[in-house]
């Protein structure tokens, strides 16, 4: 069974905490420790950002993290090596968040072969909408890797189609715009999630702009879990190789507040 599906089954209604770090920021050794520490402190699934030179869906925080990682010489092959190492110590679901060109250039077949071999459970590709998902769908299915679909508040009549075919979990983008912290949301969540609920058959989680434990608690009330990225990457940016403990503490406060 795919680890993502198993995790949501095991959670049995408990809200999922999905955390994100950019792989290789500040280096892959720290990334490994961050993953294990986040798991220890209550993260249920983890997204590893694969750095890209031109990440058009990201705000400044993750843009800068990608640049730091690229300057450090991170490559996709090295990230697969990291996943292989992590799999000796953890069974937490791991997803790669990345841009389609990285997969295309690497070779779709080779990419999913390595996902399956090393223990990647899913991929999130923000610049691959429903219309183009066949670019990866066949290979992803053959290797049992979940290709995560996204819906946004601007999706409206597209939601039913996207949610109906989604797998793993449905990634609900909280608001228009790029990734990064937001002090408030303008989205009408009752309407947005009301629409999603009508057609979704799998767990659905919300991300983009959620950075405080209080926001995480509030947003998780609408769905099955929350995704926190830039809020964590900011701590990594500030503390670098000393970020493991503070990221762990932050993860724990997110999870504990969500349980309240």
């Amino acid at each position, binding site marked *: 069974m795919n680890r993502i599906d198993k995790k949501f089954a095991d959670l049995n209604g408990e809200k999922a905490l999905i955390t994100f770090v950019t792989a290789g920021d500040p280096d892959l050794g720290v990334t490994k420790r961050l993953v294990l520490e986040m798991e220890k402190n209550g993260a249920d699934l983890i997204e590893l950002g694969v750095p*890209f*030179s*031109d990440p*058009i*869906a990201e*705000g400044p925080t993750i*843009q800068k993290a990608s640049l730091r990682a*690229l300057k450090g010489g991170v*490559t*996709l092959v090295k990230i697969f090596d990291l996943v292989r190492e992590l799999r000796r110590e953890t069974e937490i679901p791991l997803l790669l968040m990345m*841009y*389609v*060109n*990285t*997969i*295309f*250039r*690497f070779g779709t077949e080779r990419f999913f072969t390595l996902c399956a071999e090393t223990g990647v459970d899913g991929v999130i590709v*923000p*610049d*691959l*909408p*429903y*219309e*183009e998902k*066949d*670019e990866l769908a066949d290979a992803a299915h053959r290797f049992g890797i979940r290709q995560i679909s*996204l*819906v*946004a*508040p*601007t*999706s*409206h009549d*597209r939601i039913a189609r*996207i949610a109906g075919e989604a797998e793993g979990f449905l990634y609900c*983008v909280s608001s*228009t*715009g*790029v990734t990064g912290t937001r002090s408030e949301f303008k989205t009408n969540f009752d309407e947005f999630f009301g629409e999603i609920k009508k057609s979704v058959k799998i767990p659905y989680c919300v991300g983009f702009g959620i950075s405080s434990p209080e926001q995480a608690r509030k947003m998780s009330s609408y769905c099955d879990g929350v995704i926190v990225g830039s809020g964590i990457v900011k701590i990594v940016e500030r503390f670098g190789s000393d970020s493991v403990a503070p990221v762990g503490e932050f993860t724990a406060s997110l999870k504990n507040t969500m349980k309240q």
Partner: protein
Amino acid sequence: MSKIGRFGEYGGQYVPETVMNAVNELNEAYNKYKDDADFNAELQRLYREYANRPSMLYFAEKMTADLGGAKIYLKREDLNHTGAHKINNVLGQILLAKKMGKTRIIAETGAGQHGVATATAAALFGMECNVYMGRTDMERQALNVYRMNLLGATVTGVDSGTATLKDAINEAMRDWTTNIETTYYLIGSVMGPHPYPEMVRNFQKCIGEETRAQLMQREGRLPDAVIACVGGGSNAMGAFYDFIGEPSVRLIGAEAAGDGIDTPRHAATMAKGSMGIFHGMKSVFLQNEEGQIDEVYSISAGLDYPGIGPEHAYLASTGRAEYVDVTDEEAVQAFEYLSKTEGIIPAIESAHAVAAAMKLAPTMDRDKIIVICLSGRGDKDVFQVARYRGVDLSE
């Protein structure tokens, strides 16, 4: 692979979900209006009375005599209002934006010509306008930045990456994702997600259609070659499109080779690129083994882009169009040559096409005809070329 908006296997719609409905709405609006009589009458009126179309086809007699080969004609897009072909596309898209009820226009710009054209049209239509421009380009095209401000537009400097056209597009896409309900993204070239490549080409195809009619009237026949510079490739697609079905007409795109294609400093996508997916489209890009997009370079801010429109990638793959590379030095020489020979200062972008023609013309018989798309005028480039030649014009 989806079938939507494809040129062979190139094209497509590789953009975030947040903008997909906007892309679909645009596609619907474009398909509704593209054959609408009133829409086209209004566009033709703007072309004629505001942009000064049709642009003239000029026989470059001295240049022809000097090079001693094929007859050379210049398609004078440099004489359009705002000084380049960019206005053709901008007027079409802003009319569409108005029909769609959008109130805010954003655009990216490299050399500033598309930014100036967009700011101009936004002023004409009374719309708010924000232009994204790489900081490096703002420095080398300070005159155009001032022109945009004069026209009431806000120019936002982009510092990420190489601070050039690619980075300006990234930032415009981020703005679009954020302000999707009110904002129309007026893309300046035959690139991005469907329907942009097709739509921008259609708003530019008047270049080739007029060329055919004007040459037919003058010479009673088709040209043997059409040459245009290629960054994203909008003036080239506009110049080529009407001739694609005429196998006797060679279609030649001139790419920016910067310091040379065997150095790391160039922007020659077709010479050195590989297939990839970026900026909403599957096409050819300059990128490394890992799929990271290269930092590119050209003296010309308008050609300083690591990709090319998908229809060009397709025309290259079928062999219908050829792509040649022109270095900074060759472009500057052509810039000076056309100024002295014909009294026409070309845009440094268009000078790449002039340079390619200067190489080709002497190899052709005197009864052959070359048309160069002179996509823009060169006033904006005088400072840059002076600097290249070691002349300091600053006060």
